């Protein structure tokens, strides 16, 4: 029994760390997409050390969708993910929703980033370093949020199999704060 509790606690204590990683990655994504939005809206040439495709991609007709630069859409997505991670960290009573929302948003972002990479390679014929960095960030968020979700579900299942939850709560400082 103690082993089970220990394992559950060990898993569970990882989750704030994972959410903190997601928050940092989201902040990185916000910085990158803000820079891209600055370049797109202001028609500014971007610093593009690897290759010279940033301006080509920024000038492309695909860089604006429904009148809004894709970089701004990306910025909004990163903000949503940052808020979801913050909601998870705040240990509010919103249940699994922040973890699911984070996972869903990062999954959608990763799939869409894959499509954008395809556009760059096969239609625009230029690769934008910052877009690639953004794609890597959102993929990293997907992996981290999937792990966070899986640990949460595993911990819940472990509890359901007969862990004494009153003891777990007493021994889990995270849960104490959340109660």
């Amino acid at each position, binding site marked *: 029994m103690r082993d089970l509790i220990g394992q559950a606690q060990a898993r569970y204590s990882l989750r704030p760390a994972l959410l903190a990683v997601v928050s940092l990655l989201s902040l990185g994504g916000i910085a990158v997409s803000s820079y891209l939005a600055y370049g797109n809206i202001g028609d500014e040439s971007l610093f593009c050390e690897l290759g010279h495709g940033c301006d080509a*991609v920024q000038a492309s007709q695909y860089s604006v969708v429904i009148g809004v630069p894709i970089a701004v*859409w990306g910025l909004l997505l990163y903000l949503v993910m940052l808020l979801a991670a913050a909601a998870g960290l705040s240990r509010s009573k919103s249940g699994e929703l922040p973890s699911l929302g984070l996972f869903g948003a990062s999954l959608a972002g990763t799939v869409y980033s894959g499509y954008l990479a395809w556009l760059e390679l096969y239609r625009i014929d230029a690769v934008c370093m910052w877009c690639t960095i953004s794609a890597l960030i959102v993929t990293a968020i997907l992996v981290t949020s999937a792990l966070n979700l899986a640990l949460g579900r595993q911990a819940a299942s472990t509890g359901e199999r007969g862990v004494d939850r009153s003891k777990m709560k007493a021994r889990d400082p995270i849960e104490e704060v959340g109660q």
Partner: protein
Amino acid sequence: MTEDRSRPKTAGPLLVTIGLAIAGAIAAILATELLHDRAGESLVAGGETPVAGAAGSDRLCASGQVPVDGRKCGLDSARVKIIEMSDYQCPWCKRFVDTTEKEVEEQYIAKGLVQMEFHNFAVTGGNQPKEKNESTLAAEAAECANDQGRFWDYHYKLYSEQNGENEGAFRPEKLRQFAADLGLDQKEFSSCLDSHRHYDEIAQERDEAIALGARGTPTLVINDMMVPGYLPFDQFQPLIEQALAKGAE
């Protein structure tokens, strides 16, 4: 997180989340495919051809699909700037505009990599007085069109109508007719042309080109590299690539 352990997790919410995420991504992809609207890029790579501009030109700089600022065509942020010093009566200039320039537009300007700027180098008309010099008359007419924001339409029109040197192809009546064909404000255009409003600027541009070292038409400047005379695209393209590579260092 509190309630994460309060009840067993079923697959339902997770599947719904995955479904919504995939649906959202597909919707975003469809929106990008159907509702993208930035002027520029991939007209060539996407297999499309530039649409005709107001003048019916199929040329990119007159199509409204790339940013145009007077005699500049392409993004200000383009890594490579090309200056084209040219004369509307010069047959090699026409060949450049009809072939090399067209490829540059579609392969580089459309992708935001190059910005091209036209400079008048009106020398073919010789020492004719300004009323008879069809090189300067054509250049003045293009500047009058520029005053109405239609430089590139008129630029292409002039080259498409080129016929001999000082033989009447660009006499004032013809130039006015071109303006009418393009739907310019004819009264304003005629006033501009008849007053030779831009003649001095054009003469000054010619002197500046000579001071820069231009000795013939056309003369191209790719960033800081001067390229004298017409080059077909397959010889011109490596120079652009060289400038792009140098800019990326």
